[in-house]
C-alpha cells in the first residue's frame, strides 16, 4: 500500500489536496481536502444586500459571473424585486457565454495536458498532422505550413532550455496514448484556444464592462441601458457585435473543440469505464425562457439516483443539508447534525496539523469544505449531471447531441457515467449553449424593436420598499454545477448569508455516515501506473473541473464563529 499526496493539484482554480492509498496499481481509498479559507460570508454580515453580488462575485474569478447571479437572485427573491425581460435575456447571454468560454478553457488549458504529451508533439510530421486535422473538420487553419509553424515555435521554446509551465511534468508517461500528430494538433489548438477565449469574452465586456468580474449586475435587473439609437446603450450596433462574436464561437466550438474532443476520446475509451463516482446527479435548472419564478428553463432541473436514467425526480430545495463531521467547523448541536442552508451555522475550528505538515489525519476532520447532501445522499453536479437530466427528461437537442457523440465513439449511454463521460458532457453542453446564444440576442433585438427598453425594477430599489424581515434563495447552474445562495435581510441589512457551491458538492469530504464525496468516490479503482507520477489521479479529478475558492464557505447568521477564530 502506497500513500500518495498530490498537493498542490495544479491546473484548477484554488487550492486542492488529494491524498490516496494505492495498492496493486489501483486507488483503494482517497480523500479530498480544500486548504484555503477566506470567510466571505462573515464579511457580508450587516452590509447592504444590494452590494452582496460584488462581494460574492469575488469568490471566484474563473467562473466570474456565477456568484453575482446567484446573489442577485437570492436578494430579489427576498425583497420581491422582479427583473424585466431585457434583464433576463442579458443574464442568459452572460451566463451561457461564461459556460462556453469556461468549458473551452477547461478542456484546452486545464485538462488537455492530462491526455496530450507536449514533448511527443516535437516528433510529429506537420503534413500528416494537417491530413489528420482536415479529416476531422473544415477549420481553415489546418495547413502543413501552419502545423510546421507551431512545431517550430514549440521547438524553439524547448531548445532554449527553459520549459516554464511545461517543466517537470509527466511527459513520456505510459498512460499518454496519442500519436505525435494528434499531440501536435492539440498543442496547436491549445494556443489557438488561448487566442480565441480572449476574443470571445469581449461579449462579457460589451454586456458587463469588463471580464473578469463583470460590473453590470443589479438587484432587480441589469445596469446596461438598452436603446437602439443611443451610442451609450446596448444598441443596434451592439446586436451586430454580439452576433459576430457568437458566430466566431460557434465556428471554434463545432470545428475545433468538438472534433478534438472526439478525436482524443477515441484513444482513451477505457476511461469510459473509470471514475464513475457516486452515481447520483443533481441539477437546479437554468436559462429561464420566460419571466417569473416558475418560468420554464432551457436546461431542466431534476435529480437522478443510482445511474437510473428511466426516472428524473423534481428538485426540492428543502432536501439540501450540510454536514461537518470531517470539516474544520463545529456545529452547536453536535457534529452529527445535518442542517438546511437557511438555518445553517458554521464555526470555523481548525483541528488539522500545524503547517508545515506532511499528512492529514483523514479519520478526523480534514477539509475546509463541508459535506452537502441531498436527501442524505452525496450528489454529483455539473455538465454531466445537466446533460443526464436533460437527456433523461427527453430534451430534444440534448438527446440529439448525446446520441450523436455516443454513436461516433461506438459506446452506449452507460459510458457517460465516467471520467470520459464528464469530459464529453462538458463539450456537448458547450455546443448546445453556443448554438442557443444567438436566440437570446434576437430576443433582445425584438424587445428593442417593440420599444421595451426596461432593464431594472426601480420600485424595489429603495430599502424602504422592502419587508422589515425577509429571506430568499437564489439558484443557478454555474459551469461547474448547481449553485445556491441563501440570504436573510433584516432592517435593510444582511443578517445571514450562505452559499452551497458546485465544488462543495463535488469535492466535499466524507459525511457522518462515512459516505465519500464525489471526487473521493470517483477516484476508487482509478489505475495508477507509477505512484510517483499520479497522472491518472489528475485525469479524474480534473474531469470535475475543480474550483476550490468557490467551494469553501462559512456562514453564521449570528456571527458567533468569530469568537472561535484564532487570529494572531
Amino acid at each position, binding site marked *: 500500500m502506497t500513500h500518495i*499526496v498530490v*498537493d*498542490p493539484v*495544479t*491546473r484548477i*482554480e484554488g*487550492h486542492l489536496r488529494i491524498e490516496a492509498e494505492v495498492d496493486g496499481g489501483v486507488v483503494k481509498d482517497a480523500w479530498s481536502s480544500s*486548504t*484555503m*479559507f*477566506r470567510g466571505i460570508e462573515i464579511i457580508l454580515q450587516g452590509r447592504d444586500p*444590494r*452590494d452582496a453580488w460584488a462581494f460574492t462575485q*469575488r*469568490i*471566484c*474569478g474563473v467562473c466570474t459571473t456565477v456568484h453575482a447571479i446567484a446573489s442577485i437572485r437570492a436578494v430579489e427573491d427576498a425583497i420581491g424585486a422582479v427583473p424585466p425581460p431585457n434583464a433576463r435575456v442579458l443574464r442568459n447571454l452572460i451566463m451561457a457565454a461564461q459556460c462556453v468560454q469556461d468549458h473551452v*478553457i477547461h478542456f484546452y488549458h*486545464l485538462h488537455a495536458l492530462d491526455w496530450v504529451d*507536449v514533448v511527443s508533439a516535437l516528433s510529429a510530421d506537420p503534413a500528416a498532422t494537417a491530413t489528420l486535422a482536415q479529416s476531422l473538420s473544415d477549420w481553415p487553419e489546418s495547413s502543413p505550413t501552419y502545423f510546421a*509553424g507551431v512545431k517550430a*515555435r514549440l521547438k524553439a521554446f524547448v531548445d532554449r532550455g*527553459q*520549459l*516554464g*509551465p511545461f517543466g*517537470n*511534468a*509527466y511527459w513520456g508517461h505510459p498512460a499518454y496514448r496519442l500519436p505525435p500528430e494528434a499531440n501536435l494538433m492539440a498543442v496547436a489548438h491549445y494556443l489557438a484556444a*488561448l487566442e480565441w477565449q480572449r476574443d470571445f*469574452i*469581449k461579449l462579457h*465586456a*460589451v454586456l*458587463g*464592462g*469588463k*471580464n473578469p468580474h463583470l*460590473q453590470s449586475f443589479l438587484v432587480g435587473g441589469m*445596469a*446596461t*441601458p438598452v*436603446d437602439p439609437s*443611443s451610442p451609450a*446603450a446596448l444598441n443596434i450596433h451592439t446586436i451586430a457585435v454580439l452576433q459576430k462574436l457568437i458566430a466566431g464561437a460557434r465556428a471554434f466550438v463545432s470545428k475545433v473543440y468538438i472534433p478534438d474532443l472526439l478525436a482524443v476520446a477515441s484513444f482513451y475509451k477505457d476511461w469510459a469505464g473509470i471514475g464513475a463516482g457516486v452515481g447520483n446527479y443533481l441539477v437546479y435548472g437554468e436559462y429561464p425562457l420566460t419571466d417569473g419564478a416558475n418560468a420554464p428553463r432551457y436546461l431542466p432541473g431534476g435529480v437522478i439516483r443510482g445511474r437510473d436514467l428511466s426516472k428524473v425526480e423534481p428538485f426540492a430545495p428543502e432536501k439540501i443539508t450540510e454536514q461537518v463531521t470531517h470539516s474544520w467547523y463545529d456545529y452547536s448541536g453536535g457534529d452529527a447534525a445535518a442542517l438546511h442552508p437557511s438555518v445553517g451555522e458554521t464555526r*470555523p475550528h*481548525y483541528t*488539522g496539523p500545524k*503547517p*508545515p505538515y506532511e499528512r492529514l489525519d483523514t479519520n478526523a476532520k480534514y477539509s475546509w469544505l463541508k459535506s452537502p447532501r441531498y436527501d442524505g445522499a452525496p450528489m454529483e453536479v455539473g455538465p454531466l449531471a445537466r446533460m443526464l437530466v436533460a437527456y433523461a427528461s427527453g430534451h430534444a437537442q440534448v438527446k440529439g447531441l448525446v446520441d450523436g457523440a455516443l454513436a461516433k465513439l461506438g459506446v452506449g449511454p452507460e459510458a457517460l457515467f465516467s471520467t470520459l463521460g464528464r469530459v464529453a458532457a462538458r463539450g456537448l453542453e458547450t455546443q448546445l449553449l453556443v448554438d442557443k446564444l444567438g436566440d437570446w440576442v434576437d430576443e433582445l433585438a425584438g424587445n428593442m424593436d417593440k420599444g421595451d427598453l426596461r432593464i*431594472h425594477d*426601480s420600485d424595489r*430599489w*429603495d430599502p*424602504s420598499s422592502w419587508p422589515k424581515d425577509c429571506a430568499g434563495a437564489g439558484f443557478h447552474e454555474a459551469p461547474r454545477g448547481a449553485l445556491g445562495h441563501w440570504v436573510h435581510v433584516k432592517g435593510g441589512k444582511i443578517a445571514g448569508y450562505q452559499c452551497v457551491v458546485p465544488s462543495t458538492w463535488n469535492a466535499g469530504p466524507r459525511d457522518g455516515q462515512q459516505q465519500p464525496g464525489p471526487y473521493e468516490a470517483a477516484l476508487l479503482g482509478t489505475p495508477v501506473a507509477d505512484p510517483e507520477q499520479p497522472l491518472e489521479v*489528475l485525469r479524474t479529478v480534473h474531469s470535475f473541473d475543480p474550483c476550490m475558492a468557490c467551494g469553501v464557505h462559512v456562514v453564521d447568521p449570528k456571527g458567533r464563529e*468569530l469568537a472561535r*477564530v*484564532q*487570529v494572531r
Partner: protein
Amino acid sequence: MRAGADDAFRRELTARGVTRRDFMGFCSGVAALLALPRSAVGQIADALATKPKPVLVWLEFQDCCGNSESFLRASKPTAADVILDLLSVDYHETIMAAAGHQAEAALEKAITDHKGQYIVVVEGSIPTGADGAYCTIGGKSALQIARTVCRDALAVISAGTCAAFGGLPAASPNPTGALSVGDAVPGIRTLINLPACPVNAENLTAVIAYFITFGKWPATDRLNRPLFAYGKTIHDNCERRAHFDAGQYVEQFGDAGHRIGYCLYKMGCKGPVTSQNCPNIRWNEGTNWPIGCGHPCIGCAEPAFWDKMTPFYAHLTGVPGFGTAADIDKIGLYATAGVAAAMTTHGLVQLGRKAYDKRKAAAAKPPEAKPTESKAVAAKAADEPADKPTAGGAS
C-alpha cells in the same frame, strides 16, 4: 535595433507567424501606455528581441484566480507571448503541467537557481490566523511560502487588490487575519503594487515590458503603484466628465439620462476618489469599462475599498469641482438666504446640486425628464458618510 539582432529576430518572428509590423505595433502600444517617447519604441523592441528570458514565478494565496484570468486576456503582449517568448514562467499553479511534489520541485529549483534574479507575481492576500492553516499549499502555509520566495526575489509584483492591499479577505472583520504581501513580508527589495479587482492585464504586462526594456521598474507613488497607471483618478479622465460638470446625472437605472450616458455620480460612482487608468485603456483590449456599461465605479483599486467605498450605491459626499464657478456663487447666495448656519459642506453641495438640477431641468429638459430627488439611498448617504473608518483586523 542593431542590424544583426534585427535580422535574427525577424527570422524568429517569421517562424512564429509574427510579422515585424505586428511586433513593432506591440512595442509602440507599450510605449504609449507607459507615456514614453517615440524613440523608446526601438529600445523596447531591441530589448525584447535580444535579452535572455527572466524567470517569473506566480504565487496564488487567498485569491479567486481573477488576476490570472485577467492575465490570460492580455493582448499586448498576449499571455502566450509572455509565457512562450518573453519570460520563463516556471511556476504558476493554474497553468503549469506539473502537480504535487513535481510542482513544488519546480518552484524550489527556480528560486534556488535564480536567487536574487527572479520576479514574483503574487495574487491573493496572506492569512496569518490559525497558525497559517487558512491557506496551505503542499502542507506549507501561505506565509511560509511567501517569506521564502519573496525575500530572495529581484522584485515582487502584487497583482490585484488582495495582494496589494489585503482586498476582500481583509475586509471587516477580516476573519482570517489577511494581510497584503507588503505587510506580510517586510523587506522586499522592490515591491510594485498593481491594485484593481482584478488587475488590468495591460498594466501588468506593461510593467513587465518596462523591466525587460530598461532593466529597472517604473516610477511609483507612496503606495508603490506605478504612476503611469495610477497617477490620475477615474474622474479626471472619465468620458462622462462633461455631464458631471454640466450637472447631468442618472437618477434611476434605465432612465432617459442613463440611456444617453449621463454621469453616474448620484448612483454611487467612486470614480472621483479612485486612482486607476480604466478610462484610458479600458478592458478586454479596449472593448469597454464599467462606467461605459452604465454601472458606477466601485473604487476597486483603492485600499480597503470593500469597507470605505460601501454601500456601493450611496453617492460620495463633498466632491469638489461640481458645477461651474458661476453656479458655486449662486449656491452661496442660495445658502445665505436662511439655512447657512446648520449647513455642513456636504449639505451645501447637496442643496446646491438640487437647485442646480432644477435650473438645469428648466433650461434644457432632457428627453423624458424624470427628476426623482430625495431617494432613500441619497438620504442615507447624507446621514452616513461613505468614508467611514476602516475596521481593523480581527481580534
